[in-house]
Protein backbone atom coordinates (compact mmCIF):
# COMPACT_ATOMS: atom_id res chain seq x y z
CA UNK A 1 0.00 0.00 0.00
CA UNK A 2 1.48 3.34 -1.00
CA UNK A 3 1.95 5.81 1.87
CA UNK A 4 0.28 9.23 1.41
CA UNK A 5 2.78 12.02 0.94
CA UNK A 6 3.42 14.12 4.02
CA UNK A 7 2.43 17.76 3.66
CA UNK A 8 3.21 20.06 6.57
CA UNK A 9 0.22 21.99 8.02
CA UNK A 10 2.02 25.26 7.29
CA UNK A 11 2.32 24.33 3.63
CA UNK A 12 -1.30 23.16 3.47
CA UNK A 13 -2.67 26.40 4.95
CA UNK A 14 -0.43 28.54 2.79
CA UNK A 15 -1.62 26.75 -0.34
CA UNK A 16 -5.26 27.15 0.63
CA UNK A 17 -4.78 30.83 1.44
CA UNK A 18 -3.02 31.42 -1.88
CA UNK A 19 -5.82 29.64 -3.69
CA UNK A 20 -8.51 31.74 -1.95
CA UNK A 21 -6.62 35.00 -2.48
CA UNK A 22 -6.16 34.30 -6.18
CA UNK A 23 -9.88 33.61 -6.58
CA UNK A 24 -10.78 36.85 -4.81
CA UNK A 25 -8.22 38.85 -6.80
CA UNK A 26 -9.95 37.86 -10.05
CA UNK A 27 -13.24 39.50 -8.97
CA UNK A 28 -14.36 43.10 -8.88
CA UNK A 29 -14.13 45.29 -5.78
CA UNK A 30 -16.51 46.75 -3.25
CA UNK A 31 -15.91 49.84 -1.18
CA UNK A 32 -17.76 51.01 1.94
CA UNK A 33 -17.42 54.55 3.28
CA UNK A 34 -18.89 56.06 6.39
CA UNK A 35 -20.66 59.33 5.51
CA UNK A 36 -22.46 61.83 7.70
CA UNK A 37 -25.85 60.06 7.78
CA UNK A 38 -24.63 56.46 7.72
CA UNK A 39 -22.65 54.07 5.54
CA UNK A 40 -22.29 54.11 1.75
CA UNK A 41 -21.54 50.96 -0.29
CA UNK A 42 -20.32 51.07 -3.86
CA UNK A 43 -19.30 48.35 -6.27
CA UNK A 44 -18.49 47.99 -9.91
CA UNK A 45 -21.09 45.51 -11.08
CA UNK A 46 -22.14 45.00 -14.68
CA UNK A 47 -25.17 42.96 -13.65
CA UNK A 48 -28.31 44.82 -12.64
CA UNK A 49 -29.75 41.82 -10.83
CA UNK A 50 -26.88 39.85 -9.27
CA UNK A 51 -26.03 42.10 -6.36
CA UNK A 52 -22.86 42.32 -4.30
CA UNK A 53 -24.54 44.54 -1.70
CA UNK A 54 -27.76 43.70 0.10
CA UNK A 55 -29.99 44.25 3.10
CA UNK A 56 -29.72 41.81 6.00
CA UNK A 57 -31.77 43.39 8.77
CA UNK A 58 -33.08 46.75 9.99
CA UNK A 59 -29.66 48.34 10.52
CA UNK A 60 -27.42 45.71 8.96
CA UNK A 61 -26.15 45.35 5.40
CA UNK A 62 -23.97 42.79 3.67
CA UNK A 63 -21.39 43.10 0.90
CA UNK A 64 -19.48 40.27 -0.72
CA UNK A 65 -16.67 39.92 -3.23
CA UNK A 66 -15.21 36.88 -4.92
CA UNK A 67 -17.14 33.86 -6.06
CA UNK A 68 -20.82 34.77 -6.41
CA UNK A 69 -22.42 31.46 -5.43
CA UNK A 70 -20.32 31.29 -2.27
CA UNK A 71 -21.04 34.74 -0.89
CA UNK A 72 -24.67 34.45 -2.04
CA UNK A 73 -25.04 31.33 0.11
CA UNK A 74 -23.57 33.22 3.05
CA UNK A 75 -25.89 36.17 2.39
CA UNK A 76 -29.04 34.03 2.36
CA UNK A 77 -27.85 32.05 5.38
CA UNK A 78 -27.29 35.35 7.18
CA UNK A 79 -30.80 36.59 6.39
CA UNK A 80 -32.22 33.29 7.68
CA UNK A 81 -30.16 33.52 10.84
CA UNK A 82 -31.16 37.07 11.77
CA UNK A 83 -34.83 36.67 10.81
CA UNK A 84 -35.15 33.59 13.01
CA UNK A 85 -33.38 35.38 15.86
CA UNK A 86 -35.47 38.54 15.52
CA UNK A 87 -38.69 36.51 15.32
CA UNK A 88 -37.81 34.30 18.30
CA UNK A 89 -36.62 37.14 20.54
CA UNK A 90 -37.01 40.77 19.46
CA UNK A 91 -35.74 42.92 16.61
CA UNK A 92 -33.34 44.73 18.97
CA UNK A 93 -31.62 41.46 19.82
CA UNK A 94 -30.19 41.13 16.32
CA UNK A 95 -26.68 42.56 16.24
CA UNK A 96 -23.99 42.88 13.60
CA UNK A 97 -21.49 41.42 16.04
CA UNK A 98 -23.49 38.21 16.42
CA UNK A 99 -23.83 37.83 12.67
CA UNK A 100 -20.16 38.60 12.02
CA UNK A 101 -19.24 35.98 14.59
CA UNK A 102 -21.40 33.32 12.89
CA UNK A 103 -19.85 34.15 9.51
CA UNK A 104 -16.39 34.01 11.01
CA UNK A 105 -17.02 30.56 12.54
CA UNK A 106 -18.42 29.22 9.29
CA UNK A 107 -15.64 30.54 7.07
CA UNK A 108 -13.02 29.41 9.57
CA UNK A 109 -14.41 25.86 9.63
CA UNK A 110 -14.63 25.69 5.87
CA UNK A 111 -11.06 26.94 5.54
CA UNK A 112 -9.57 24.34 7.88
CA UNK A 113 -11.72 21.29 7.27
CA UNK A 114 -12.72 21.38 3.61
CA UNK A 115 -10.57 20.65 0.60
CA UNK A 116 -11.49 23.90 -1.11
CA UNK A 117 -11.74 27.14 0.90
CA UNK A 118 -14.34 29.75 -0.01
CA UNK A 119 -12.98 32.30 -2.46
CA UNK A 120 -14.82 35.25 -0.98
CA UNK A 121 -14.55 38.08 1.50
CA UNK A 122 -17.53 39.70 3.13
CA UNK A 123 -18.43 42.85 4.99
CA UNK A 124 -21.11 43.06 7.69
CA UNK A 125 -21.97 46.69 8.44
CA UNK A 126 -24.43 48.22 10.87
CA UNK A 127 -25.39 51.86 11.10
CA UNK A 128 -25.56 53.33 14.61
CA UNK A 129 -27.16 56.47 16.02
CA UNK A 130 -23.87 58.31 15.58
CA UNK A 131 -20.78 57.81 13.42
CA UNK A 132 -18.92 56.57 16.48
CA UNK A 133 -21.43 53.72 16.95
CA UNK A 134 -21.32 52.50 13.33
CA UNK A 135 -19.89 48.99 13.01
CA UNK A 136 -17.91 47.56 10.09
CA UNK A 137 -16.78 43.93 10.28
CA UNK A 138 -14.55 42.73 7.48
CA UNK A 139 -14.41 38.90 7.36
CA UNK A 140 -11.79 37.10 5.28
CA UNK A 141 -11.86 33.71 3.50
CA UNK A 142 -10.22 32.03 6.53
CA UNK A 143 -12.68 33.41 9.05
CA UNK A 144 -10.47 36.15 10.46
CA UNK A 145 -12.48 39.23 11.41
CA UNK A 146 -11.33 42.80 11.63
CA UNK A 147 -13.29 45.69 13.04
CA UNK A 148 -12.85 48.72 10.77
CA UNK A 149 -13.59 52.43 10.94
CA UNK A 150 -14.01 55.05 8.23
CA UNK A 151 -13.82 52.93 5.11
CA UNK A 152 -13.28 49.37 3.93
CA UNK A 153 -12.09 48.17 0.53
CA UNK A 154 -12.39 44.55 -0.53
CA UNK A 155 -11.93 42.44 -3.62
CA UNK A 156 -9.59 42.35 -6.58
CA UNK A 157 -7.93 45.71 -6.23
CA UNK A 158 -8.40 46.26 -2.51
CA UNK A 159 -4.81 47.46 -1.87
CA UNK A 160 -4.91 50.17 -4.55
CA UNK A 161 -8.43 51.20 -3.49
CA UNK A 162 -7.31 51.47 0.11
CA UNK A 163 -4.34 53.61 -0.86
CA UNK A 164 -6.50 55.88 -3.03
CA UNK A 165 -9.20 56.44 -0.40
CA UNK A 166 -6.73 56.76 2.47
CA UNK A 167 -5.23 59.90 0.89
CA UNK A 168 -8.61 61.56 0.39
CA UNK A 169 -10.78 60.42 3.33
CA UNK A 170 -11.10 63.02 6.16
CA UNK A 171 -8.14 62.64 8.52
CA UNK A 172 -10.11 63.81 11.55
CA UNK A 173 -12.64 60.96 11.40
CA UNK A 174 -14.98 60.51 13.33
CA UNK A 175 -15.21 64.26 14.05
CA UNK A 176 -15.86 64.88 10.36
CA UNK A 177 -17.30 62.57 7.71
CA UNK A 178 -18.05 63.41 4.06
CA UNK A 179 -21.61 64.21 2.94
CA UNK A 180 -23.35 61.72 0.65
CA UNK A 181 -22.46 63.39 -2.67
CA UNK A 182 -18.78 63.74 -1.67
CA UNK A 183 -18.65 60.12 -0.54
CA UNK A 184 -20.28 58.85 -3.76
CA UNK A 185 -17.85 60.90 -5.86
CA UNK A 186 -14.89 59.62 -3.83
CA UNK A 187 -16.09 56.03 -4.17
CA UNK A 188 -16.65 56.41 -7.90
CA UNK A 189 -13.21 57.95 -8.46
CA UNK A 190 -11.60 55.24 -6.38
CA UNK A 191 -13.30 52.47 -8.38
CA UNK A 192 -12.30 54.23 -11.61
CA UNK A 193 -8.69 54.56 -10.46
CA UNK A 194 -8.42 50.75 -10.33
CA UNK A 195 -10.86 49.91 -13.11
CA UNK A 196 -8.61 51.14 -15.89
CA UNK A 197 -10.79 53.85 -17.45
CA UNK A 198 -14.32 55.19 -17.18
CA UNK A 199 -16.76 53.35 -14.93
CA UNK A 200 -20.17 54.22 -16.41
CA UNK A 201 -23.06 54.92 -14.02
CA UNK A 202 -24.87 51.90 -15.46
CA UNK A 203 -22.28 49.53 -14.05
CA UNK A 204 -22.23 51.03 -10.55
CA UNK A 205 -24.07 49.40 -7.68
CA UNK A 206 -24.79 51.95 -4.97
CA UNK A 207 -26.61 51.45 -1.68
CA UNK A 208 -26.72 53.12 1.73
CA UNK A 209 -27.55 52.45 5.33
CA UNK A 210 -29.15 55.76 6.24
CA UNK A 211 -29.80 56.35 9.95
CA UNK A 212 -32.46 58.99 9.18
CA UNK A 213 -34.72 56.39 7.54
CA UNK A 214 -37.51 54.63 9.48
CA UNK A 215 -37.05 51.05 10.70
CA UNK A 216 -35.33 49.62 7.62
CA UNK A 217 -32.24 51.75 7.09
CA UNK A 218 -31.06 50.06 3.89
CA UNK A 219 -31.73 51.65 0.52
CA UNK A 220 -30.49 50.74 -2.93
CA UNK A 221 -30.18 53.58 -5.42
CA UNK A 222 -31.78 52.96 -8.79
CA UNK A 223 -29.59 53.90 -11.76
CA UNK A 224 -31.37 57.19 -12.48
CA UNK A 225 -30.66 58.43 -8.94
CA UNK A 226 -26.93 57.72 -9.08
CA UNK A 227 -25.97 60.18 -11.83
CA UNK A 228 -27.29 63.31 -10.00
CA UNK A 229 -25.13 62.38 -6.99
CA UNK A 230 -21.91 62.43 -8.98
Amino acid at each position, binding site marked *: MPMPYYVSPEQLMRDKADYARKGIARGKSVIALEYEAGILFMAENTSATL*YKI*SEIYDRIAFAGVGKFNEF*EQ*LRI*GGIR*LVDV*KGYSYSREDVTAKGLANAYSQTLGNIFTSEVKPYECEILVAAVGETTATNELFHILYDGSVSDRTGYVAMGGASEQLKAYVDERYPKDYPASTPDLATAVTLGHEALQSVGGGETPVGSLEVAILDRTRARRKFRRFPEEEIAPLL
Partner: protein
Amino acid sequence: MRGEPDFGADFLRRPVHGPGSSFSELMKGHQPDPEAPSRFEGQVHAPEGTTVLALRFDEGVVVAGDRRATEGFQIAHRSIEKVFAADDMSAVAIAGAAGPAVEIVRLLQTELEHYEKVEGERLTLEGKANKLSQMIRANLPAAMQGMIVVPLFAGFDEARGHGRIFKYDVTGGRYEEDDYHATGSGGKDARSSLKKRYRLDLTREEAVKFAIEALFDAADEDVGTGGPDLMRGIYPTVAAISAEGMVEIPEEEIQRLFEELIADRAEDIRSQESHPVDVRRPGEEA
Protein backbone atom coordinates in the same frame (compact mmCIF):
# COMPACT_ATOMS: atom_id res chain seq x y z
CA MET B 1 -34.42 18.24 13.92
CA ARG B 2 -36.51 19.70 16.73
CA GLY B 3 -35.41 21.98 19.49
CA GLU B 4 -34.34 25.54 20.00
CA PRO B 5 -33.58 27.52 16.85
CA ASP B 6 -29.90 27.11 16.10
CA PHE B 7 -28.29 30.52 15.95
CA GLY B 8 -24.89 29.08 15.19
CA ALA B 9 -23.18 28.55 11.91
CA ASP B 10 -25.55 25.76 10.84
CA PHE B 11 -27.85 28.21 9.03
CA LEU B 12 -25.05 29.60 6.95
CA ARG B 13 -24.12 26.30 5.37
CA ARG B 14 -27.55 24.96 4.60
CA PRO B 15 -28.10 24.74 0.87
CA VAL B 16 -29.71 27.83 -0.58
CA HIS B 17 -32.48 25.77 -2.16
CA GLY B 18 -33.50 24.29 1.24
CA PRO B 19 -36.48 26.26 2.54
CA GLY B 20 -36.25 28.63 -0.46
CA SER B 21 -37.27 32.17 0.32
CA SER B 22 -40.04 31.30 2.77
CA PHE B 23 -39.55 32.13 6.41
CA SER B 24 -42.38 29.90 7.64
CA GLU B 25 -40.85 26.92 5.80
CA LEU B 26 -37.53 27.73 7.46
CA MET B 27 -39.18 27.67 10.90
CA LYS B 28 -40.73 24.24 10.33
CA GLY B 29 -39.15 21.77 12.70
CA HIS B 30 -37.93 24.50 15.01
CA GLN B 31 -39.46 25.29 18.35
CA PRO B 32 -41.72 27.21 18.45
CA ASP B 33 -42.96 26.12 15.05
CA PRO B 34 -45.58 28.79 14.41
CA GLU B 35 -47.54 26.51 12.11
CA ALA B 36 -47.30 23.27 14.09
CA PRO B 37 -50.70 21.69 14.75
CA SER B 38 -51.65 21.96 18.40
CA ARG B 39 -52.21 18.83 20.42
CA PHE B 40 -54.46 20.24 23.13
CA GLU B 41 -58.02 19.19 23.73
CA GLY B 42 -61.11 21.00 24.88
CA GLN B 43 -62.13 24.61 24.52
CA VAL B 44 -59.83 27.51 25.27
CA HIS B 45 -61.06 30.96 26.25
CA ALA B 46 -58.74 33.79 25.38
CA PRO B 47 -59.15 37.50 24.68
CA GLU B 48 -60.92 38.28 21.42
CA GLY B 49 -60.53 41.23 19.11
CA THR B 50 -63.83 42.63 18.01
CA THR B 51 -64.56 44.86 15.00
CA VAL B 52 -62.34 45.66 12.01
CA LEU B 53 -63.21 46.94 8.55
CA ALA B 54 -61.72 47.92 5.21
CA LEU B 55 -63.12 49.94 2.34
CA ARG B 56 -61.77 51.03 -1.00
CA PHE B 57 -61.45 54.62 -2.10
CA ASP B 58 -60.46 56.04 -5.48
CA GLU B 59 -56.70 55.75 -4.91
CA GLY B 60 -56.39 52.86 -2.50
CA VAL B 61 -57.90 51.33 0.59
CA VAL B 62 -58.70 52.39 4.16
CA VAL B 63 -58.36 49.88 7.02
CA ALA B 64 -59.72 50.53 10.51
CA GLY B 65 -60.33 48.76 13.79
CA ASP B 66 -61.66 49.54 17.25
CA ARG B 67 -59.41 49.13 20.28
CA ARG B 68 -61.29 46.72 22.51
CA ALA B 69 -60.51 43.10 23.35
CA THR B 70 -63.09 41.10 25.28
CA GLU B 71 -63.04 37.88 27.27
CA GLY B 72 -66.61 36.70 27.62
CA PHE B 73 -68.48 39.71 28.96
CA GLN B 74 -65.35 41.27 30.43
CA ILE B 75 -63.11 43.81 28.78
CA ALA B 76 -59.71 42.16 28.40
CA HIS B 77 -57.90 45.18 27.00
CA ARG B 78 -58.97 48.77 26.30
CA SER B 79 -56.32 49.82 23.84
CA ILE B 80 -55.31 46.77 21.82
CA GLU B 81 -53.95 47.39 18.34
CA LYS B 82 -55.74 45.46 15.58
CA VAL B 83 -54.50 47.10 12.39
CA PHE B 84 -50.94 46.08 11.45
CA ALA B 85 -48.78 46.97 8.49
CA ALA B 86 -47.88 43.67 6.82
CA ASP B 87 -45.34 45.64 4.76
CA ASP B 88 -45.25 49.11 3.16
CA MET B 89 -48.09 48.30 0.78
CA SER B 90 -50.51 46.13 2.74
CA ALA B 91 -52.15 45.77 6.13
CA VAL B 92 -53.82 43.05 8.18
CA ALA B 93 -56.71 43.86 10.50
CA ILE B 94 -57.34 41.12 13.01
CA ALA B 95 -60.57 39.83 14.51
CA GLY B 96 -61.07 36.79 16.69
CA ALA B 97 -58.64 35.23 19.16
CA ALA B 98 -56.11 37.98 19.76
CA GLY B 99 -53.13 35.83 20.76
CA PRO B 100 -52.90 33.59 17.68
CA ALA B 101 -53.98 36.49 15.46
CA VAL B 102 -51.08 38.70 16.57
CA GLU B 103 -48.74 35.73 16.13
CA ILE B 104 -50.00 35.17 12.58
CA VAL B 105 -49.41 38.86 11.84
CA ARG B 106 -45.85 38.68 13.19
CA LEU B 107 -45.17 35.60 11.09
CA LEU B 108 -46.64 37.23 7.98
CA GLN B 109 -44.60 40.41 8.51
CA THR B 110 -41.39 38.41 8.86
CA GLU B 111 -42.34 36.20 5.90
CA LEU B 112 -42.89 39.15 3.55
CA GLU B 113 -39.71 40.95 4.58
CA HIS B 114 -37.71 37.71 4.43
CA TYR B 115 -38.91 37.00 0.90
CA GLU B 116 -38.13 40.55 -0.21
CA LYS B 117 -34.58 40.41 1.19
CA VAL B 118 -33.76 36.97 -0.20
CA GLU B 119 -35.33 37.44 -3.62
CA GLY B 120 -34.59 41.15 -4.03
CA GLU B 121 -38.21 41.92 -4.91
CA ARG B 122 -41.58 42.05 -3.19
CA LEU B 123 -44.30 39.43 -3.41
CA THR B 124 -47.38 40.47 -5.40
CA LEU B 125 -50.47 41.41 -3.39
CA GLU B 126 -52.09 38.18 -4.57
CA GLY B 127 -49.07 36.23 -3.30
CA LYS B 128 -49.26 37.89 0.11
CA ALA B 129 -53.01 37.19 0.37
CA ASN B 130 -52.44 33.51 -0.49
CA LYS B 131 -49.66 33.16 2.07
CA LEU B 132 -51.96 34.55 4.78
CA SER B 133 -54.59 32.08 3.66
CA GLN B 134 -52.20 29.16 4.29
CA MET B 135 -51.34 30.52 7.73
CA ILE B 136 -55.01 30.71 8.70
CA ARG B 137 -55.50 27.18 7.38
CA ALA B 138 -52.64 26.05 9.63
CA ASN B 139 -54.49 27.56 12.59
CA LEU B 140 -57.51 25.30 11.99
CA PRO B 141 -56.76 22.86 14.86
CA ALA B 142 -56.66 25.84 17.25
CA ALA B 143 -59.83 27.21 15.66
CA MET B 144 -61.57 23.92 16.46
CA GLN B 145 -60.88 24.69 20.14
CA GLY B 146 -62.41 28.11 19.88
CA MET B 147 -59.39 30.18 18.89
CA ILE B 148 -60.78 31.42 15.60
CA VAL B 149 -58.77 33.95 13.61
CA VAL B 150 -60.51 35.71 10.72
CA PRO B 151 -58.51 38.71 9.59
CA LEU B 152 -59.02 41.17 6.79
CA PHE B 153 -56.15 41.73 4.41
CA ALA B 154 -56.03 44.90 2.35
CA GLY B 155 -53.41 46.57 0.27
CA PHE B 156 -52.47 48.47 -2.81
CA ASP B 157 -51.91 46.26 -5.85
CA GLU B 158 -48.98 47.89 -7.65
CA ALA B 159 -49.55 45.91 -10.85
CA ARG B 160 -53.24 46.78 -11.11
CA GLY B 161 -52.92 50.29 -9.66
CA HIS B 162 -55.78 50.09 -7.15
CA GLY B 163 -56.61 48.92 -3.63
CA ARG B 164 -57.87 45.39 -2.94
CA ILE B 165 -59.58 43.76 0.05
CA PHE B 166 -59.54 40.08 1.03
CA LYS B 167 -61.61 38.43 3.73
CA TYR B 168 -61.00 34.93 5.11
CA ASP B 169 -62.93 32.12 6.71
CA VAL B 170 -61.70 29.73 9.44
CA THR B 171 -60.45 27.18 6.93
CA GLY B 172 -58.22 29.70 5.18
CA GLY B 173 -60.80 30.30 2.44
CA ARG B 174 -59.95 33.58 0.75
CA TYR B 175 -62.57 35.83 -0.81
CA GLU B 176 -62.00 39.14 -2.50
CA GLU B 177 -64.38 42.03 -1.85
CA ASP B 178 -64.84 44.73 -4.48
CA ASP B 179 -65.96 47.53 -2.23
CA TYR B 180 -65.88 47.11 1.56
CA HIS B 181 -66.03 44.53 4.30
CA ALA B 182 -66.16 44.38 8.09
CA THR B 183 -65.68 41.41 10.38
CA GLY B 184 -65.65 40.60 14.09
CA SER B 185 -68.46 40.83 16.65
CA GLY B 186 -69.66 44.22 15.37
CA GLY B 187 -68.90 43.41 11.75
CA LYS B 188 -72.52 43.12 10.71
CA ASP B 189 -73.38 46.52 12.19
CA ALA B 190 -70.34 48.14 10.60
CA ARG B 191 -71.25 46.60 7.25
CA SER B 192 -74.79 47.94 7.48
CA SER B 193 -73.39 51.39 8.15
CA LEU B 194 -70.91 51.21 5.28
CA LYS B 195 -73.57 49.87 2.91
CA LYS B 196 -75.56 53.11 3.21
CA ARG B 197 -72.56 55.34 2.63
CA TYR B 198 -70.40 53.49 0.13
CA ARG B 199 -69.80 54.81 -3.39
CA LEU B 200 -67.24 53.73 -5.95
CA ASP B 201 -65.52 57.11 -6.14
CA LEU B 202 -64.90 57.97 -2.48
CA THR B 203 -61.99 60.28 -1.70
CA ARG B 204 -59.61 59.30 1.06
CA GLU B 205 -61.14 61.88 3.42
CA GLU B 206 -64.64 60.50 2.85
CA ALA B 207 -63.47 56.92 3.27
CA VAL B 208 -61.81 57.75 6.62
CA LYS B 209 -64.97 59.56 7.74
CA PHE B 210 -67.22 56.63 6.81
CA ALA B 211 -64.87 54.13 8.45
CA ILE B 212 -65.13 56.08 11.70
CA GLU B 213 -68.88 56.33 11.37
CA ALA B 214 -69.17 52.57 10.79
CA LEU B 215 -67.08 51.82 13.89
CA PHE B 216 -69.21 54.23 15.89
CA ASP B 217 -72.38 52.49 14.68
CA ALA B 218 -70.91 49.09 15.53
CA ALA B 219 -70.00 50.28 19.04
CA ASP B 220 -73.53 51.67 19.38
CA GLU B 221 -75.12 48.27 18.68
CA ASP B 222 -72.54 45.69 19.76
CA VAL B 223 -71.30 45.31 23.34
CA GLY B 224 -67.98 43.87 22.17
CA THR B 225 -66.99 46.88 20.10
CA GLY B 226 -65.27 49.79 21.76
CA GLY B 227 -66.32 53.31 20.83
CA PRO B 228 -64.10 56.36 21.22
CA ASP B 229 -62.90 56.46 24.84
CA LEU B 230 -63.04 60.22 25.50
CA MET B 231 -62.03 59.86 29.13
CA ARG B 232 -58.78 58.01 28.42
CA GLY B 233 -58.22 59.46 24.98
CA ILE B 234 -58.28 56.08 23.19
CA TYR B 235 -59.50 56.20 19.60
CA PRO B 236 -59.85 53.55 16.89
CA THR B 237 -56.93 52.99 14.52
CA VAL B 238 -57.36 54.08 10.91
CA ALA B 239 -54.77 53.65 8.15
CA ALA B 240 -54.87 54.45 4.44
CA ILE B 241 -52.82 52.60 1.80
CA SER B 242 -52.23 54.05 -1.64
CA ALA B 243 -49.47 54.04 -4.28
CA GLU B 244 -47.36 56.13 -1.85
CA GLY B 245 -47.54 53.43 0.81
CA MET B 246 -49.30 53.13 4.15
CA VAL B 247 -50.15 56.19 6.26
CA GLU B 248 -51.61 56.00 9.72
CA ILE B 249 -54.26 58.70 10.20
CA PRO B 250 -53.08 60.85 13.12
CA GLU B 251 -54.99 60.54 16.37
CA GLU B 252 -55.87 64.27 16.44
CA GLU B 253 -57.68 63.92 13.12
CA ILE B 254 -59.57 60.84 14.30
CA GLN B 255 -60.50 62.64 17.51
CA ARG B 256 -61.76 65.65 15.51
CA LEU B 257 -63.84 63.43 13.20
CA PHE B 258 -65.41 61.66 16.20
CA GLU B 259 -66.23 64.96 17.88
CA GLU B 260 -67.94 66.16 14.69
CA LEU B 261 -69.83 62.89 14.32
CA ILE B 262 -71.01 62.92 17.94
CA ALA B 263 -72.08 66.57 17.68
CA ASP B 264 -74.11 65.76 14.53
CA ARG B 265 -75.75 62.71 16.03
CA ALA B 266 -76.50 64.48 19.32
CA GLU B 267 -78.22 67.29 17.47
CA ASP B 268 -80.42 64.78 15.59
CA ILE B 269 -81.36 62.95 18.76
CA ARG B 270 -82.00 66.01 20.94
CA SER B 271 -84.34 67.52 18.41
CA GLN B 272 -86.63 64.56 18.95
CA GLU B 273 -88.89 64.08 21.99
CA SER B 274 -87.24 63.44 25.30
CA HIS B 275 -87.69 60.12 27.13
CA PRO B 276 -89.12 60.95 30.55
CA VAL B 277 -89.01 58.33 33.27
CA ASP B 278 -92.07 57.86 35.38
CA VAL B 279 -91.09 56.26 38.67
CA ARG B 280 -94.06 54.48 40.23
CA ARG B 281 -94.23 53.16 43.74
CA PRO B 282 -96.21 50.10 44.88
CA GLY B 283 -99.83 50.96 45.51
CA GLU B 284 -99.82 54.10 43.43
CA GLU B 285 -102.51 54.49 40.83
CA ALA B 286 -101.49 53.71 37.31
